[in-house]
């Protein structure tokens, strides 16, 4: 091991230390909000060492098990932002619902470490390990509210689906190892070119199961609505964003580095899965009344859009589009979930009809929610619009016009149910006119999410540059 390598994993070390520190803070303080505040500050501070890595040459460290490249740095930033926002939201949502509040923040930070590791692994052992790491913390977080039957159910279901998916994925990994005799991704990439095609496709198919589960791609999406509905709302937000982003990061790294499409053409398969995910997610979202379930189904649909970015890997649009989409989607989706958390906290309901008259009772939140809904639909000038634009342009660029058309049609379908939320908030009459209390930390998180959504939508150039450079650095 080269001691200089340690300087390249300072963000990871910092976050790990932070998580352990949080456990200690939690031990010695009765005011659990302190733990949350420390977590947010620590998370934000980790941006500094991450930023230092930004301009560095791409390389692998620690005997080739870990990548330091623009791609990894991009996901580090994304993860840290998402985790900080979720922590802020949880600080207002969680108190009174569980007696293990301090550990919650620590587990969130641990999950952040795991997600970061997942996006930067260049060794299949580490990749499998970090995927499982994310899964394990996610199961715990989903089932965190022990007295709540829905949370129990979410935890058990998530665990059973997830553990099965990872068992299948690990079998796929074992075959990949057998085809190459090495665990290093780049070494595998060198040797896999003379690997037998059938065995390789079997292995890729099995691995896709695992990643498909993480990113809730059809047909591995069944867990999504139940888990999102049952899990604590901040956790659902986190799962729908960060876990999905890291899943895509790992999938992109695996597919792009290891499997050359000229050898094994995975493009048509993934394109079809993308189209099916978009359409099915949308159709199932249409009749939903529960906002969390609706967002769950719509996140399946978004997974389909994101898959277009994976499929359209040639050219300047697809993969950068994927990253832009992910970042924009992170802000938007988190924001939408935060509003749901706020309303859920105040009104004790997650049903969309209960949002009636929200524009008068909580004008700021309602306005932001409207922005998020428009953004999720993909209307300008919002962040998801930029992402969708790039991804669809990528599809056309790669000669997948039909996929782009499916995407556009689906965006139009999705307008129906997203607009339904806006309609409830602005047009339907309010059952009471009592203004809703809007707690501070949640407001901050909401504000940041709203700002992020709009800024990326209005002035996307820096993000586009960042995404482009990140993608360029992917292949070492």
């Amino acid at each position, binding site marked *: *091991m080269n001691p200089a390598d340690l300087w390249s*994993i300072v963000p990871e070390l910092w976050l*790990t230390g932070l998580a352990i520190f949080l*456990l200690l803070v939690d031990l010695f303080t009765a005011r659990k909000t302190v733990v949350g505040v420390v977590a947010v500050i620590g998370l934000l501070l980790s941006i500094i060492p991450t930023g230092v890595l930004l301009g560095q040459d791409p390389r692998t460290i*620690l*005997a*080739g*098990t*870990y990548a330091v490249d623009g791609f990894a740095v991009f996901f580090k930033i994304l993860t840290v932002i998402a985790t900080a926002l979720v922590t802020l939201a949880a600080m207002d949502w969680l108190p009174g619902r569980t*007696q*293990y509040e301090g*550990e919650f923040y*620590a*587990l969130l930070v*641990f999950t952040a*470490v795991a997600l970061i*590791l997942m996006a930067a692994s260049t*060794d299949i*052992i*580490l990749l499998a*390990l*970090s995927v*499982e*790491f994310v899964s*394990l*913390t996610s*199961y*715990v977080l989903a*089932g*965190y509210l*022990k*007295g709540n039957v829905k949370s129990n159910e979410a*935890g058990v279901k998530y665990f059973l689906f997830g553990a099965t998916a990872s068992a299948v994925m690990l079998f796929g990994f074992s075959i990949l190892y*057998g*085809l*190459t*005799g090495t665990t290093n991704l780049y070494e595998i990439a060198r040797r896999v070119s*003379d*690997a*037998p095609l*059938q*065995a390789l496709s*079997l292995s890729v198919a099995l691995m896709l199961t695992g990643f498909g589960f993480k990113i809730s791609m059809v047909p591995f999406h069944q867990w999504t609505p139940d888990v999102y509905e049952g899990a604590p709302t901040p956790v659902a937000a986190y799962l729908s964003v960060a876990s999905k982003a890291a899943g895509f990061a790992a999938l992109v790294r695996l597919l792009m580095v290891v499997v050359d499409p000229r050898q094994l053409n995975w493009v048509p398969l993934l394109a079809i899965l993308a189209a099916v995910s978009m359409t099915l997610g949308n159709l199932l979202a249409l009749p939903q009344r529960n906002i969390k379930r609706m967002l769950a189904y719509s996140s399946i649909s978004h997974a389909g859009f994101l898959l277009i970015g994976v499929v359209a890997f040639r050219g300047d649009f697809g993969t950068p589009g994927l990253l832009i989409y992910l970042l924009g989607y992170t802000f938007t989706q988190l924001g939408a979930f935060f509003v749901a958390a706020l309303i859920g906290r105040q009104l004790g309901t997650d049903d969309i009809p209960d949002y009636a008259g929200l524009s008068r009772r909580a004008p700021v939140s309602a306005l932001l929610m409207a922005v998020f809904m428009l953004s999720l639909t993909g209307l300008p000038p919002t962040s998801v619009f930029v992402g969708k634009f790039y991804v669809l342009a990528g599809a056309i660029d790669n000669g997948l016009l039909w996929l782009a058309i499916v995407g556009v049609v689906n965006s139009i379908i999705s307008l129906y149910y997203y607009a339904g939320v806006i309609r409830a908030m602005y047009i339907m009459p309010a059952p009471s006119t009592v203004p809703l209390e809007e707690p501070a930390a949640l407001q901050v998180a909401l504000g940041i999410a709203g700002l992020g959504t709009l800024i990326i939508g209005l002035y996307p150039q820096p993000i586009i540059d960042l995404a482009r450079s990140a993608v360029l650095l992917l292949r070492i």
Partner: protein
Amino acid sequence: MGELAAFIILACVTLIPAVVVVTSGNIVRSALSLIPTFLGVTGLYILLHAEFVAGIQILIYAGAITVLILFVIMLTAGGTGTRIRQVNEQVPLGAMAAVWLGFLILLVIFRTRWPYTATPAPQYNVASIGTAFLTDYVLIFEVTSLVLLVSLIGAIIVARREE
């Protein structure tokens, strides 16, 4: 010849109880059948000269995981009865899926030319695994410890009774 005999015995010791695990109507018997399966797998590891993995396999799988499973079965009343239906309506579907997938994988395995190497196995040394963990795989080793810590915390939080 002797090796083949040992292999066949171990394969049977592994697979026959495995079938009992997934088909038995008595959940405790299912759980106890895991033990011969795990021991058979251990035997396969020994045949493959992976003795350290074999030792860990017994210690963790047979000694810890099975005990944990038995523990939970016995703590959750209603799970242990034999009159309870243990299978869902998907039996034919599940059997079909399993058989088809198995058939597919076997087909691929037989049609693949695996990249054998001619080098003979070196003298097996437990130390080489330890060295690998602390040199090339040091990050994996450290992350594994983190995973253990986190699952410990998580399991305690979730399993503890709410006061």
